[in-house]
């Protein structure tokens, strides 16, 4: 048997199953990251409530989903819940598992971004007569968003890699699609090289898009950061 077969490599590269797997990986990453941002933001806002039950909930949520491996969570959702008569489809289990496991990381990012908005901003808004919800929505949240966006972008890459774990509950994303090819032709080296290339391409593409976005909106990002750093002196426009 040849060590490396180029024709197998190129066949695998454009294999329909693999390409469908790439697409599944992409949409699964995007959907679960968006959901995780929604869940994580709500959890972060609960974590800002200075009441004990809210604090317990926040700490408990973050600790629980960070302390348990995603792999275990996925298998639990898909294989253990049916014993309690809760039956999830593969896609449901994958989406719920990836969302819940990512949301504590988002919650921590959002919470620290909100804390990074100077207290003086709250005071200035209160002094005008704004109520807490208005301040959160129109003053603090918009500034926190600019602080949170770069780290949230990094989470996309992490989530993209995490999707490979849903293969164990038989969801055919990129990794499992690759495995299917291997089961047919036993060319492990070529197939996994292809999978690696696709993961690399996807993360590289995302990193490029994120950099481009941040560069294009650099003024947008520096307004918050800049005003935090310099308090009194400014450059005359």
């Amino acid at each position: 048997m040849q060590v490396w077969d180029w024709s197998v490599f190129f066949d695998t590269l454009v294999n329909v199953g693999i390409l469908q797997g790439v697409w599944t990986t992409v949409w699964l990453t995007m959907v679960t990251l968006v959901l995780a941002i929604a869940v994580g933001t709500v959890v972060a806002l609960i974590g800002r409530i200075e009441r004990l039950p809210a604090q317990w909930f926040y700490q408990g949520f973050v600790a629980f989903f960070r302390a348990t491996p995603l792999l275990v969570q996925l298998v639990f959702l898909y294989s253990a819940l049916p014993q309690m008569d809760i039956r999830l489809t593969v896609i449901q289990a994958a989406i719920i598992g990836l969302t819940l496991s990512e949301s504590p990381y988002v919650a921590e990012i959002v919470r620290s971004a909100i804390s990074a908005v100077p207290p003086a901003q709250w005071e200035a808004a209160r002094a005008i007569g704004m109520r807490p919800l208005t301040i959160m929505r129109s003053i603090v949240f918009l500034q926190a968003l600019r602080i949170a966006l770069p780290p949230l972008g990094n989470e996309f890459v992490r989530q993209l890699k995490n999707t490979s774990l849903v293969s164990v509950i038989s969801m055919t994303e990129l990794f499992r699609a690759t495995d299917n090819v291997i089961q047919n032709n036993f060319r492990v080296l070529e197939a996994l090289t292809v999978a690696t290339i696709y993961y690399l391409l996807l993360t590289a593409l995302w990193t490029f898009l994120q950099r481009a976005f941040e560069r294009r909106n650099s003024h947008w990002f520096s307004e918050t950061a800049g005003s935090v750093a310099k308090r009194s002196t400014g450059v005359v426009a």
Partner: protein
Amino acid sequence: MSAPVPGPFIRVTNAVKRFGDFVALGGISVEVDKGQAVALIGPSGSGKSTLLRCLNALERIDEGMIIVGGEQIGAWVDTSGARRQLSLRDQARQRESIGMVFQSFNLFPHMTALENVASGPRLVRRTARLEAETAARALLERVGLGDKAGSYPRQLSGGQQQRVAIARALAMKPNVMLFDEPTSALDPETVQEVLNVIREVRESGMTMLIATHEMEFARQVSDRTIFMERGQIVEQGPSAEVLVSPRTERCRRFLSGLTGTTTVA
């Protein structure tokens, strides 16, 4: 809420404010009539800022009473005579008519100068955008920044930012303006432009309290001056007297210390 009562517009009675063991306000009483301008002077940590912050309930007093425009600030008295905290909503409503200008401007960095000035009317009073921005533009003109409406705070000098902050406070049409060392964070060359704006606000008849280290400015713009030290009022009276020929030794020492190296603790 209680009906407006005749008498001084601002009445602070035996106000006490503690931060842990530190007594920031040691039971002070101040009265300011409508249309009066009062300068607060004294060394750092003397309680000037704390007094201003208590006047619009950014800080809560521990004892005593603060009445502005006939309304108790931050608290109300129930039928049994006990003092209760006002809801956040009512505190916010009270702050609408009390303008505050901070030492470090605290403009909203994600908004242009125009949006900053319009933010109060838009987000608190729900004024329509066009109306709020027309009024905001007029206020920017008034503080001499009509051409900076579209600039973001980071594009403005300190003095310009502070003038925007004054316009932002004025946009709520307050009954009283509180200035907390408005020029202390400024480069010397921009101090005057801010003082000129405050002077203009004063000439419009605004009731105001100004914590400041600009003694010459305090003498020109204020009717009365209050000298504070360690949370107490040491001396108060017409500005011309307190600032020019103070009665107390401590005030004299403070004023002379300002010209040389400060010796006041």
